[in-house]
């Protein structure tokens, strides 16, 4: 499968002039009407990412704890009861693809997403599995994919290129790419009443006129800013402070983060819960120019009461949110330019344990991918009869990373420098999952 590719580094990068792609996000710029641009850009229906590198955004729905894919996306109805679990399959809108009965909304959009059922990285530890899924690496400290996107392409308009919500994940950081590639963290639950992005707006009792006063006082008080140049840390702080003001005062930035602007019916459609509103906010952010949104969604570590938790809470919320996200992106013409990913750090054991739970299983699980040039309605690879290991066409984390970089338009062969100044490629191996493209 890996032979006969003319050049392993692809053709869509390198030769494009990356106008405005320099580093961190631009100060004072207004947000472009990304939605309109994207609608215009999606006239064609050919496969693979179109247009210049950095054209595609990513929404990574990360199911922290580990989604039980044997109960959801790769079910084994013919396995013994202690393996196949309690759920039944339903047909999707693509003949031949079945998913869990508790994913009815999602099932209606199977034409938009594809499943990789032969995925494995072999690591069944929290932390380590996460590293694999968020950076492509286990043994080395590496930047998260989102940080790579931020580093390579910078921001579109005045909005941060990489956002993590509703809480930080230890492997979602920039590693050696430096703080300019760090995610902008929304350390708050978008479904909470009165949700606001922390620190983005001044406290409530600082109104616009008082903020303007403060800003003008700051201008006369900070005598050092007159003799810092653009270099050095003081220069950087000066610059970031200006950007902070730009973010705080930009109506578009405010609008992007303000989930309350969505109608009640839209908010309901996504589901009034952390998952639903995170997906909705992610759509708003991508619409406004954010390149990479990671939803770090907790509680999937179903060692006990796997079926109850999945059926009663986790799956209905995921199902509604994901189904609506796919429909919404598609209706808005944004899906072609937005890669949606669903995965945990690993899957769960084929055998149900004594607590009616399933334990960690990195030896085989299923990824769901949609949009951004990924073809929908496909199943890539297969697992063995108990979903214990890949059967046909095994796919690994490096292949996943290669696909991610390909979709993003990142040159995965690019040399970057680690903290101790060792030159390394962004990705040292792995092949794109071309069956998806």
């Amino acid at each position, binding site marked *: 499968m890996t032979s006969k590719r*003319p*050049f*392993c*580094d692809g053709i869509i990068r390198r030769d494009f002039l990356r106008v405005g792609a320099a580093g*961190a*996000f631009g100060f004072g710029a207004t947000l472009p009407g990304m939605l309109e641009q994207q609608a215009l850009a999606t006239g064609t229906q050919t496969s693979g990412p179109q247009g210049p590198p950095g054209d595609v955004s990513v929404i990574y729905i990360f199911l922290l704890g580990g989604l039980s894919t044997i109960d959801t996306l790769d079910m084994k109805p013919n396995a013994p009861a202690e393996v196949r679990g309690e759920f039944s399959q339903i047909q999707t809108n693509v003949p031949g693809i079945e998913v869990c009965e508790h994913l009815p909304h999602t099932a209606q959009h199977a034409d938009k997403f594809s499943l990789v059922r032969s995925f494995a990285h072999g690591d069944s530890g929290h932390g380590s599995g996460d590293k694999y899924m968020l950076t492509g690496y286990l043994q080395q400290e590496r930047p998260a994919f989102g940080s790579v996107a931020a580093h390579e392409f910078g921001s579109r308009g005045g909005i*941060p290129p990489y956002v993590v919500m509703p809480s930080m994940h230890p492997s979602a950081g920039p590693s050696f790419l*430096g*703080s*300019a590639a*760090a995610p*902008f*963290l929304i*350390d708050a639950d978008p479904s909470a009443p009165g949700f606001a992005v*922390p*620190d*983005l*707006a*001044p*406290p409530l009792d*600082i109104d616009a006129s*008082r903020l303007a*006063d*403060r800003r003008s*006082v*700051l201008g*006369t*008080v*900070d*005598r*050092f*800013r007159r*003799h*810092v*140049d653009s*270099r*050095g*840390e*003081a220069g*950087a*702080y*000066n610059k*970031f*402070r200006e*950007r*902070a003001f730009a*973010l*705080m005062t930009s109506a578009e930035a405010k609008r992007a983060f303000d989930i309350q602007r969505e109608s009640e019916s839209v908010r309901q459609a996504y589901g009034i819960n952390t998952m639903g509103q995170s997906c909705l906010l992610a759509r708003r952010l991508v619409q406004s120019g954010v390149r990479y949104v990671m939803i770090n969604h907790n509680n999937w570590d179903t060692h006990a009461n796997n079926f109850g938790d999945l059926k009663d809470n986790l799956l209905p919320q995921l199902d509604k949110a994901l189904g609506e996200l796919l429909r919404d992106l598609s209706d808005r013409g944004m899906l072609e330019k937005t890669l949606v990913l669903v995965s945990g750090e690993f899957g769960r054991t084929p055998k149900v344990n004594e607590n009616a739970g399933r334990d960690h299983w990195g030896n085989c699980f299923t990824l769901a991918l949609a949009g951004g040039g990924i073809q929908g309605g496909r199943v890539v690879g297969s697992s063995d009869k108990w979903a214990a290991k890949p059967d046909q066409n095994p796919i690994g984390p490096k292949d996943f990373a290669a696909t991610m970089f390909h979709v993003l338009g990142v040159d995965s*062969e690019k*040399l970057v420098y680690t*903290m*101790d100044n*060792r*030159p*390394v*490629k962004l990705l*040292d*191996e792995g092949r794109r999952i071309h069956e998806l493209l």
Partner: protein
Amino acid sequence: MGKSPNHLTLIVLGQITLLAVPVWADTTLVGVDVNPTSVSLRGPVARYSLLVTGKSESGNLLDLGGEAVFRSDSPEIVSIDEQGVVRPVADGDGMVVVEVAGRSLSVPVSVENSHSPREFSFVNDIMPLLDKKGCNGAGCHGKAEGQAGFKLSVFNSDPEADYEAIVMQGRGRRVFPGAVERSLLLLKVSGQRPHGGGRRMELSSPEYNTLRDWIAAGVPYGSDADSRVERITVTPGTRILSGNARQQLRVVAYYSDGRMRDVTHLAQYESNNPGLASVSATGLVTTKDRPGQVALRAGFMNQFDMFQALIPRSDRISIWPELAEHNFIDRHVYNKLRALNIVPSGVADDAEYLRRVYLDVIGTLPSAEEIRRFLSDSGQDRRSRIVDELLKRPEYADYWALKWSDVLRVEREALGHQRAYAYYKWVRDSFADNKPYDQLVRELITVEGALIDVPQAHFYGVEGEPGKIASRVSQTFLGLRIACAQCHHHPADIWSQTDYWGMQSFFTQVQTRDTPRGTVIFADGNPETKHPRTGEVVHPYPLGTDMPATAPVTDRRKVLADWMTSPDNAWFARNIANRMWAHFMGRGLIEPVDDLRATNPASNPELLDALSEHVVTNNYDLRELIRTITRSRVYQLTAQPNETNRLDEQNYSHANLRPLEAEVLLDAVCQVTGVAERFQGAPPGARAIQLWDSGVSHYFLKLFGRPVRKSACVCERVSEPNVAQALHVMNSPAIHQKLKHEGGTVARLHAMFPADSQLVEELYLAFFSRNPFDQERENGVAYLRSKPDRRRAAEDLAWSMMCSIEFIFRH
């Protein structure tokens, strides 16, 4: 010869564009030299590069190679190219001519054996090519798993394996002596076949030809008896260069059989300060527009040498001011600055000095009370007296324990709560007691006994694998990074794998045992370390020394500690002197501070020598070193640059602005607002610099770059600002609450000082640790009066100060 330089300048200007003004255009040349004055070429592929140097009236030396015209007077014997590289054509004596600056200089060349068959050595002829072209780089075929099925040893560490990979593996397709041009190796490097690395050699380039001829000759390996590179030299060694100038280097390798060879085209180059000068793959150095001292390293077959350039400002200082010298530090810094045509900034006033010295010595801002007391002190020695006071305060131990807990890795996650705390306590006690630094290190390295008695043993507990310990010890206490040499020869230093394993084996005796007194650590036995590639036994030996015939029979760590802490050790005192200097001055004499390799010289070597000597003569008393550094006039300069030092970042001509560490900044925020923070697991009133566990959950500390203590590198503490930090200081509800807190500073001052002018003054004292200037006072008063709510207006002033560079940074 007859033309005057000026005459020639005119001609050149007439011929080519104005942009190409020759380098000597604005100086008068008093002489031109070609080096060497004669060349002897032996063998069919010999080469030698000529360096052309002009001497100006002021004595400066200029590289004229870019303007010189090279020609051969005897083309049947010798050729010379545009870069001035001489190559053989046929045996005999010939002559090449260099024409430059109206002069014409002849260099006799003798050629021998120009047509004798080439005798190849894989190690000496082929490996350097693969190295130069980056084939064996860590990003390509040199990485552990190779690339596309072809693996080379990274940085030439395993010649035999590389030979086998090229000649035997790959189903024999890589080299075809029978049909040379069809060898995959040639097809790939020349880009005739798709190659992930692209085209690395042009068809029929000298490099390509060498590879081709080697294959045609039947891919000989040569023999182990082949000569080896013993050293390399870079010419010139030092120069004074102006900004935006060039200097071509020549690199010559000396072999064990007495041969020498020009390897300029094969050497690898690197600048230790790309902001000052860069160097091309062909050894051409280009300076930037910034003054300073820079070293350009050349490496060839694991041998290294360097070129050092001093780049003065172009405007000479006609009369350098008379400046007081408080101690030896000032003399050495002034010497450097004078050579660079830079005049240092003025001395900071008392308030600026006080804030700086508080932050640097105890990581804490002075209180308004302390500032007032200091400002009213008229004693001549007040600046040194305050340092003596600070050194005795508990915050001194808090702050330095925090810093050292980072690099010594007091890691709760790895050690557990109790052990990590005991380890921290040992670090803090060491600073509270002013334990001599050599003793501190000795106690750490040679620790033995029950863990409850010797908690520093947890140094071994964080990551106990002997090689990892050897790396941490070298990096932390010697400033040498040897971790690379675990798997391959260090790419930028002289350390071989044997050196790494020699260090590793100092720690292989270390064991623990559970006893009634708890876990006990001790060193015992005679374990053998084997070189991972050759399998030969490696006895313990310190870096840069010879391996002994046997391993010491005692605790090997004591041998290492003796060597490290000996006054003659080349790195131990320099490392601590440089790290301490970097802390107080914002930049090490050597940067990064854990990279003391020979080819990364100090920006002011005389000063570093003097500081290390000071450390040794004062028995490693760190407080004494702090007194000496802070007493120097150089330490006390303002951050305000002048016309001559604006671009200087390297030579301590003004104070550097540096962000406060996360913990120090949070404490500062609490102190100036008068509202303390509560930390999980710490007693009420605990300050951030007292937190022994870097894992205490706190958004502010994380946001401002507190390290997680997963490595011994100071680089783990991130000082690079980001937009979230700026947003947090401006908007965080927590900080907002502190500003408007009823029991906080702003409320208190607002109530206490009804006079606006006094209120402004008090706010400046609290937040900026100084009195306001007149204009600032006026601005502040005007603002207070312009607002209906005076208290809120005072909060606005305080908020602006807190968001200022003057608050967030040390200066």
